[in-house]
């Protein structure tokens, strides 16, 4: 296949594959959950979307020398499923600027059309005020009737039913890809995981695990998410240690007698 701006190292033969697409977003939910699955399934990299038209170049200085420009990546992976639909992954490590979102999404749909992708899956976070005690829930949002029935069959509630709301939004590529695919007759599902508002800007969130578990369940895969849980716990601990380092400096500046929230 000769598609401009797409580099394929090989052309796997895929049977009615699902496309799992993920980019950085709130709480890094989509990226963390889908990357984990990609790794655990040992999916094979088979191509990438060339970044030059969708992303800005960046340079790094190493040992006093300015290096050649570097770009974010949008890599393509595949996994052959003996017991169901094959899976294709598109994992991006950075969001493009808003002007380039649709163009990038449309390019990925070109690839999806070529491989006869049956459905696109993405994920997002549903931010709620306050703390979340107990299990975080996962809801679905769909762009076609078949996907709606698929979710019903697998007992995933629709966001509109659970929250009784008429409108919601998915910012960035995790949303735009669904719209771009739908325009070209490929339906999709977005798995929304509940998340406390405070975690929205953090790079680690327990919501990634519940989303990953739900995805594994509805795709009927056999993947364990214990490691993902550990990754998240470790990540949260490191963030707290970073903050603590600065809190300690603060204490030093102001001497004893300062109160801190130690519990």
């Amino acid at each position, binding site marked *: 296949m000769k598609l401009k701006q797409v580099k394929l190292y090989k052309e796997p033969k895929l049977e009615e594959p699902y496309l799992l697409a993920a980019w*950085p977003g709130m709480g890094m939910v989509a990226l963390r959950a889908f990357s984990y699955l990609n790794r655990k399934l040992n999916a094979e990299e088979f191509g990438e979307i060339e970044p*030059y*038209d969708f992303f*800005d*170049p*960046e*340079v*790094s*200085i*190493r*040992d*006093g*020398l*300015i*290096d*050649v*420009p*570097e*770009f974010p990546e949008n890599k393509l992976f595949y996994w052959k499923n003996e017991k169901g639909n094959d899976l294709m992954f598109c994992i991006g490590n*950075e*969001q493009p*600027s*808003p*002007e*380039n979102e649709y163009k990038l999404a449309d390019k990925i749909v070109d690839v999806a059309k070529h491989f006869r992708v049956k459905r696109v899956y993405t994920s997002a976070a549903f931010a709620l005020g306050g703390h979340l005690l107990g299990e975080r829930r996962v809801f679905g949002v769909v762009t076609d009737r078949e996907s709606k029935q698929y979710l019903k069959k697998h007992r995933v509630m629709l966001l509109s039913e659970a929250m009784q709301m008429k409108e919601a939004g998915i*910012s*960035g590529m995790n949303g735009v890809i669904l719209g771009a695919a739908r325009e070209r007759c490929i339906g999709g599902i977005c798995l929304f995981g509940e998340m406390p508002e405070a975690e929205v*800007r953090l*790079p680690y969130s327990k919501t990634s695990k519940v989303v990953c578990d739900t995805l594994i369940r509805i795709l009927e895969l056999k993947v364990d998410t214990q490691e993902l849980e550990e990754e998240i716990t470790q990540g949260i601990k490191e*963030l707290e240690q*970073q*903050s603590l*380092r*600065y809190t300690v400096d603060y204490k030093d500046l102001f001497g004893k007698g300062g109160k801190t929230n130690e519990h």
Partner: protein
Amino acid sequence: MELSPMIKIYKEPDLKNSYLIAGFPGPGGVGLGVASYLNRLGAEKFCEIEAYKFSSMPRSVIKGGVMEELEFLDNEFSYWKSKGENDLIIFKSEQPTFKKHEFINLALDVAEKFRVKRVYTSSGLIRPVRHTKEPWIFAAANKPELKEYLENFNLLPIKTGIGLTDLNAVLVGSARERNIEGVCLFSEVPVYVAPLPNPKGVKSILKLLSKMLSIDIDLVELDRFIKQMDQEMEKLYENLPEDTKKTFVESVESEAKLISDLTEAEIENLFMEAEKDPSEFRISKLGTKLYSSGLFPKYEDRFFKLIQKKR
């Protein structure tokens, strides 16, 4: 060499051992200011890139009530024949918004065609310093052989920096792929006046370049502009909260040796852009950079203030 039809060459000057001085927008407008001021040497325009696919913000030029021109991205190459060893090509350009990589490579195509040996760019380094300070100049090169060359000029070396988006730095990185030598000079720009023109920075770079290139540049016009801007900057400085003022350092030589990493300067760049355009995209980009550099707690208050302002 077959050039893209987007490159419009009006004249092919015969240039020897030419150096390219390039300037893109950046903090303090230093890069663009340096390139613009060099044109006063009597440089003649000879080339430009037709840039309609690189800009999302075209402007129309109206003369006498008639729209004469639709300008997508103002850019020009001019040349100056020196009496010394190296002729100069001066390239200045507005900021491309799309396909920056391709645009930079078109500029380098022109450089290659005219057998440019080395490219010099300059920009501003946003730092917590006062505007009254004589700005230090930091430098980075794209080839090991140049490091020695830079030592002759008493510049402060930059050792590291991850993910710099300033096109003045990117051009030098791209030049490396073409085997063209490159130097990027950064002049200090105070954080509270970063979006404003910084003629003091421009002057310090020009003084350095006149030494490096052995050329004479009359800087008197700049002094007037510097006086003007100093007054404006003084007003902005006075309006800062007292404890912020206290964090700004004056010239401390020992501190200079510690500034070898550009990551915080890049973070200041991202803050400046997010303050100008507090969109979800820019805020997320800044947040991600803060986490990946491990510096989130240091900038936490400032970051959350930015988000609150957005609301």
